[in-house]
Structure formats: structure tokens, C-alpha cells
């Protein structure tokens, strides 16, 4: 077309005008640390595996998850999910049911028989892992995937440690436990049961081990002195739970009193109920608010008919009677005796006052520091003795399965580096993705899908699993409730909201990039990014 001069112009020719020169600040994409990841004791990349679960690629999700934790099916049942407490979605409606999705993925893996990838090369090194509990198995798993030879020695007759002997079946079915342990052994890990390590240095020498990871659980129930008649039936909670795994179930009687306020006390009381006790009563010296047990466990216990006697201590035990003293909290929240007493019928008294670790295998090992019944370790999980690392219940830490699993992973990475004569440098943590960085308007309101609860009555008398799992549709839905805090989930908002078309969409899985030739630095992309994965930085001048 012979176009009239200046009046009529060719289409799209404004590309010649590089408006990027107007800019004083520019947007940059970044990954921030989502609070779930930050809160996970096992260091899982939760947002990362949810991302794959959201698209229905459960195997990919499971593979990303198991890079950090080999026990999704177990975690999905026993983890106290601090990730959910931290979840930003909790400030919107309710946290994402991360734990449920994890369990779904774990169960899906068992159902479909997914296996871990075998290590590509062998290092030729051998590591002794003492204890086949969560921490030991976790370390063994990671070391095996790093190409090291691993041998686990456990004093017990079965694998799993506290996962088997401390957690009731109704919370963790044993076929699930067995399946996830077996999958680790498929990596070539040797497991020697009924093999108590009496002396670690002797065992290492005998087996030509290059390093050792000690993960002996806290299997010894703490005792407290309670004046008691001869006929009083007093047992410790951990023994009760452990004996559930044997042939002979413990005889606790019709009225069982559990003394303590932790999760083990709850487990013991609920177990007693399932063993036939008509009354299971927890006696605790403080109030519900002060109780260390997780609230949802307390709630489930109360639903099952467990009674809890608050602000009471046990002063004396007889064959069928206990003497209790009422307490009151002082200004600082500590219980103080009141001098008021009462009696309570009880066929047996179960003490759930905490557990100790048997540290005898460390006798004579040089350089160790033992304090408050646990071994001191450095930030690399190594004890004062070179080559001997420790984790789980036997080091100073919160005692949960998830923390143990995290120790195992962390120790494995340091052992690997130590064996190579280097030091493991964890990647620098991204800056946290806090709620105020999100634009929650974009997220649909959606209630958390509650796991179907088994009927409370039925639960009281059986050891069937208490919580059902998600099925695929609701697992998908739950995964998709994830806000993807701080990490791009390809919602196309930046691409759409830029008034200057200065965002280039790179295609599925490739995210986006800025075209700084045209970006004027208005910052709308940052404001409208739902998940806080863009920030403004000053333009270099």
C-alpha cells in the first residue's frame, strides 16, 4: 500500500521504542522458602512435591518427596506435620492437608510398587548404622543412594525401632511400615536384626567400617518414685506399647490410669482402651494448655472416651487404689501441691514420664561428650569421635519420627562429605515466603478436605487404622489448595497483567522471563503474583 506519509503507519512498529529505559526499579523472579519447607524437620521440599501432585503426576511427586524422606506412607500417618502449622494457607482458611497428600503418595507408591532409583556408582565405603529406627533407616537410605555400602545393626527382632515399638498399630499399620523399610533394603542395604552393638569401636573394627551412624532409640521408660503397695501393678508406657508387638498382650485390667502428659501417655491410654479397659484415665499434673501432647491426639483420645484428670499428681499406689493430690498452677505456670487428696480406683498404673537411651555401646569411646543422657554432636552430626556420627533420640533434640528422619538425612550428607575428605555445605536458604508477600485474592476459598474418620466407637475396640486416607480426587484437590508460596506455579499472572507485554512466557515447566527492553518497572507483576515469586530491585545505573 502506498501509504500517506506520517498519517498511516505499519502495524506494531512501536517495538522500535525501548521503554525499558524509563525504569528505575526492575522486577526479578526468585524462589522463596515456603514456610512448610522451612518447618519440615525432615527437610522435605513440600511445595516442590505438591507442585507435581497438583498436576496429577504422583510418581514424580513421590520421587521428589523421597529425595529427602523415604517414608511418605509412614510420615503421612505419624508425622505431627509442623508444615501444616506453618502453612500460609492457615491465614486464609485452613492449612493445606500436606500430611494427607503425603500419605496418599506413600500409599500410592506401595500400591503401585514404585522403587527407588539404584545409585549410579559405588564409593567402595562401608558405613555401620546402629539402630533400624527412623533415623537409622533414613541415614542408611541416603547413604545407599549416595553409593555407599550400608549395614544396619539392630538389637531388636524387627525393624522400625520406635515406629514399631512406640507407635500403636491403629496409627501406623505394620504392613505400611514393612513396605517402606523393605524398599530401602532393595537399595542393597544390609539389615542385621537381633544384633546388639555392645561396643561401637569393636563393631566398626570387626566389620571394617569407614564410619558409623548411631541412632539408638529411647526405649527405656523413665521411672519416678511412687510409694506403692506390694500388689500395685505399675508398668511403663513404652513397655506396654512394645509388648503390643509381641505374642502376649499386656494385662492391664478394667481400670487403667496413665500418668503423664505427652503423646506416649495418650498412645498408652488409647491402647489400654483397645485392650479392653472400660476406663482409661490420664492423670496429668498441669492443664490442657500446658500438655505436651499434640492437641489433635488429645481430641481423638477424648472422643474415644479417654478421661483426663488435670492438675493431679499420684502420691501413692495400691493394688486397686491410687492416691492423688490436687495441684494448682503458680504465677509462672508451675504446678504446686495443695494438700488436698483424693483416691481413685485403678487396676494398673502406666507411667508415661519420658524415655531414656541406652548409651552403653559408647562406653570407652574417646572424645565423646554425654550430657543429660544424650550424646552431643556438632552441626555436622558427628560426635566428638571422628567418624562416629549420631542422631535421633540419642542426640539433644525433639524426639519425633520426623526429626529422626531429618537427622538421618543430614548425617548421611555429612558422612558422605567426611568420607570424601570434604565438608558438606548446605545450599544457602532462600529468603522466607511470608504471608504478606502473597496476593491471596487469587486463591479460591476451599475448605481442607478432612480425612474420613473411622467411627469413634469402632476405634475404641480395634487396632484398625484410625484415620482413613484421601482418595485420588480429594488428594488432588488438597494438593491444589497449595498456595505455592514463594515459588512460581505458572499461573500466567505476570504474563497477563503487564501493561507493556514485557513478560515472555517460556512454555510449560519453563516459567517466564522479563523483557527488560520494554519493562517500565511499574511493579504490577510483583503485586499481582499470587505466590510472591517476583520482587523489585533497584535498577543498576
Amino acid at each position, binding site marked *: 500500500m502506498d501509504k500517506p506519509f*506520517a498519517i498511516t503507519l505499519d*502495524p*506494531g*512498529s512501536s*517495538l522500535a521504542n525501548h521503554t525499558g529505559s524509563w525504569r528505575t526499579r526492575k522486577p526479578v523472579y526468585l524462589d522463596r522458602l515456603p514456610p512448610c519447607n522451612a518447618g519440615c524437620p525432615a527437610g522435605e521440599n513440600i511445595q516442590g512435591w505438591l507442585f507435581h501432585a497438583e498436576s496429577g503426576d504422583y510418581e514424580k511427586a513421590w520421587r521428589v518427596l523421597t529425595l529427602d524422606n523415604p517414608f511418605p506412607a509412614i510420615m503421612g500417618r505419624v508425622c505431627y506435620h509442623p508444615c501444616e502449622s506453618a502453612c500460609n494457607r492457615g491465614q486464609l482458611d485452613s492449612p493445606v492437608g500436606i500430611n494427607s497428600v503425603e500419605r496418599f503418595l506413600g500409599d500410592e507408591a506401595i500400591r503401585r510398587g514404585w522403587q527407588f532409583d539404584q545409585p549410579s556408582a559405588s564409593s567402595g565405603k562401608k558405613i555401620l548404622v546402629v539402630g533400624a529406627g527412623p533415623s537409622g533407616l533414613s541415614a542408611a537410605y541416603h547413604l545407599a543412594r549416595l553409593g555407599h555400602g550400608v549395614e544396619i545393626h539392630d538389637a531388636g527382632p524387627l525393624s522400625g525401632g520406635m515406629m514399631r515399638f512406640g507407635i500403636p498399630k491403629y496409627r501406623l499399620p505394620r504392613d505400611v511400615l514393612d513396605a517402606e523399610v523393605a524398599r530401602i533394603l532393595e537399595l542393597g542395604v544390609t539389615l542385621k536384626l537381633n544384633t546388639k552393638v555392645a561396643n561401637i569401636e569393636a563393631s566398626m573394627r570387626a566389620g571394617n567400617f569407614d564410619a558409623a551412624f548411631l541412632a539408638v532409640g529411647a526405649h527405656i521408660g523413665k521411672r519416678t518414685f511412687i510409694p506403692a503397695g506390694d500388689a500395685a501393678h505399675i508398668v511403663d508406657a513404652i513397655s506396654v506399647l512394645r509388648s503390643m508387638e509381641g505374642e502376649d498382650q499386656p494385662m492391664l485390667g478394667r481400670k487403667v490410669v496413665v500418668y503423664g502428659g505427652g503423646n506416649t501417655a495418650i498412645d498408652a491410654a488409647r491402647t489400654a482402651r483397645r485392650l479392653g479397659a472400660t476406663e482409661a484415665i490420664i492423670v496429668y499434673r498441669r492443664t490442657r494448655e500446658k500438655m505436651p501432647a499434640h492437641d489433635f491426639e488429645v481430641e481423638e483420645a477424648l472422643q474415644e472416651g479417654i478421661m483426663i484428670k488435670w492438675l493431679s499428681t499420684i502420691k501413692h499406689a495400691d493394688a486397686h487404689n491410687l492416691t492423688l493430690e490436687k495441684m494448682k498452677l503458680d504465677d509462672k505456670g508451675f504446678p504446686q501441691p495443695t494438700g488436698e487428696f483424693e483416691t481413685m480406683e485403678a487396676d494398673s498404673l502406666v507411667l508415661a514420664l519420658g524415655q531414656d537411651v541406652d548409651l552403653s555401646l559408647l562406653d570407652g569411646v574417646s572424645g565423646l561428650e554425654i550430657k543429660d543422657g544424650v550424646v552431643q554432636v556438632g552441626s555436622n552430626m558427628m560426635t566428638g569421635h571422628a567418624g562416629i556420627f549420631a542422631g535421633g533420640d540419642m542426640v539433644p533434640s525433639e524426639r519425633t519420627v520426623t526429626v529422626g528422619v531429618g537427622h538421618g538425612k543430614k548425617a548421611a550428607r555429612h558422612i558422605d562429605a567426611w568420607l570424601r575428605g570434604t565438608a558438606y555445605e548446605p545450599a544457602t536458604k532462600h529468603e522466607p515466603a511470608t504471608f504478606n508477600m502473597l496476593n491471596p485474592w487469587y486463591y*479460591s476459598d476451599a475448605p481442607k478436605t478432612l480425612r474420613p474418620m473411622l467411627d469413634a466407637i469402632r476405634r475404641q475396640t480395634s487396632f484398625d487404622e484410625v484415620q482413613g486416607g484421601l482418595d485420588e480426587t480429594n488428594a488432588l484437590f488438597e494438593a*491444589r489448595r497449595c498456595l505455592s508460596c514463594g515459588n512460581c506455579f505458572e499461573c500466567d499472572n505476570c504474563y497477563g*497483567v503487564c*501493561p507493556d*507485554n514485557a513478560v515472555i512466557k517460556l512454555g510449560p515447566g519453563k516459567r517466564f522471563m522479563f523483557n527488560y527492553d520494554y519493562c517500565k518497572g511499574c511493579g504490577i507483576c510483583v503485586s499481582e503474583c499470587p505466590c510472591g515469586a517476583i520482587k523489585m530491585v533497584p535498577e543498576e545505573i
Partner: protein
Amino acid sequence: MPFQPIKFYQTGTFTVGNRLLNPEQRSVQSHRDRSNAINSGHRACQGCGEALGARYALDAAMEASNSQLIAANATGCLEVFTTPYPETSWQLPWMHSLFGNAAAVATGIAAALKVKGRNEVRVVAQGGDGGTTDIGFGCLSGMFERNDDVLYICYDNEAYMNTGVQRSSATPPAARTATTMPVGAHPGNPFGQGKFVPAIAMAHEIPYVATATVADLRDLEAKVKRAMEFRGARYIHILVPCPLGWGTASDDTILIARLAHETGLFPVFEAEHGVQVSALTIRKQRPVEEYLKPQKRYAHLFGAKPKPDVIARIQQRADRNIRKYGLLQKEVA
């Protein structure tokens, strides 16, 4: 709501795209091959709501018409920032004639297409609030009453921004403009003036009238798509915040538009043949202060001598809109 919201997704229907949606469920703006009817390199201010709204609307119209689209444009920011010689940002056949005649020019374009038998080519006219509600109103009304086959899109930023923020008949009460300064007994634009052209468009009983904002892309695109399903005169009125004229941060453009809707101050609805057929309901109603406060054009309502009485009157306007257009979701019994 003119579209079926997608449920059970982490972002539902609200984000531009989302990799989890089927391609046909994604917005036009999420497509890598969207038209970009306005190309990069235009000279709109940082964070310009009109540049955004125009691309949203025209890309959707381009998609709906299979890129068989011609645009007539009134004088104003949109025209000035897209076509300073020797560059144009438009990627579709586009024409600027005058400030007040975009609707009539579009009528001429539509007539020419009709006489040439090119029924597949569709026509949009567009202008700002001044070019639509004031100087172009005669031509607009004429185009409406003749039911010419034109989709007219008004990008409403509530004042004459191109000339330096003077009042238009779309300027809301109490707003400061260069010709309604916050001085005297009744600072800012007076109450009891102005017109709401969507309602006037409805009075013409044309096939389709809708309002939208740049804050809800899906709604906007659905309305453009719906409008393109009709032949005859159609009108879409899009609220496009102006960081310069409203005194807002350049990154708040969409937020402000969202608040305009969520306070009820800007009712988002659609009408067919003069009868309202839907409303975009407010998910969470906001008090008008939240909308007014971030805007410097309302700064005189806060500051050292706050004017709660004026804010209350503005809240009354919002409440009236909510009642009139049914903007709050009815409780499900």
C-alpha cells in the same frame, strides 16, 4: 457472572492462566500466541490501567473474531500513547479520527464492511470516559439507537487524563481533579453530578451492555466474548485506574480496580436488551475507605481534617449500587 467459575483449583478462575487448566479454560491473555493488539513500546505511563484494559479487551475480541477486527479510536491517552509518528503499537487495522466521533467512524466502517459483504470482519470503537460520556456521547447514542453493528468499549479512568486530569462526567463525587480542586466548602467533584453511561446504554435497549474492571480478567474476557456473539450495538464499560490521575502507586493499578468492585463503588454486571442479566458478585465486601485511602485524589478526605461525612456519603453510593445491581452473593439457605 457471565462464565462458569472453575472450582477446586488452587487459584480457581482468578489467575490469568494456570498450567493445571485445560487450554480452553485458560484466558486469552495466558496464550503465548495472543494477539498483543497493543504491542510493546507504547508510551503509556508505568502501570497504566488503560493500556492493560485495551489489550485485554482487544485480544479477546481478536480471538472471538478470528483476528478479523477493525478498531476506531477516539482521541485520548490511548490514541496518543499508541500512535506517535513514526511508530504505532496497534497490530490490527486501526483508525483515529477525532475526539468525539469514534462511534460514528465505527458505524461508517461497519457500513462499508456490510456493503462489501465482509460480514466476517467485526468492528470495535474505543475511547476514554471523556470521549465516550462527554464529547462523543452524541455519536455514541446515535450508534446505539441505530443498532449499528459495533462494539463500543469505554476505558473509564474517570477524568480527562491526557489533558492533565480535568473533570469529566464520569468523575466520581469528592474526587480531586485539576478542575475540581480540593478547596472551598465542598472540596473535590460535587455530589449529585455525573452520569453512568452503562445505564444510559441499557436505556437504548441495545443487545448487550456490560461493565468490567481490569482486576477481573476472566470476567472481562467473558464479556467481550459474549458481546462478540451479538450483532448490533454493544457497549462495554471498563474501569481502568490511572496511577497519574488518581495518585496511586503504579503497582496498585489492579488492586485499586479490584477494590472499586469489592466496595460496590463500581458495579460489575451485564445486561441484554436493556435488562440486567448478571452481576459479578463481591467475594468479600470492603469498606470504601480501603478504596479511597490509597488514592491521592481523595487525600483531602483523610489527612489533617478528615471528612467522615463525605466518606459516609460515598459509602452510601456503594451500598446503593450493591442493592441496585445485586452485588452481594445471596446466602444459600
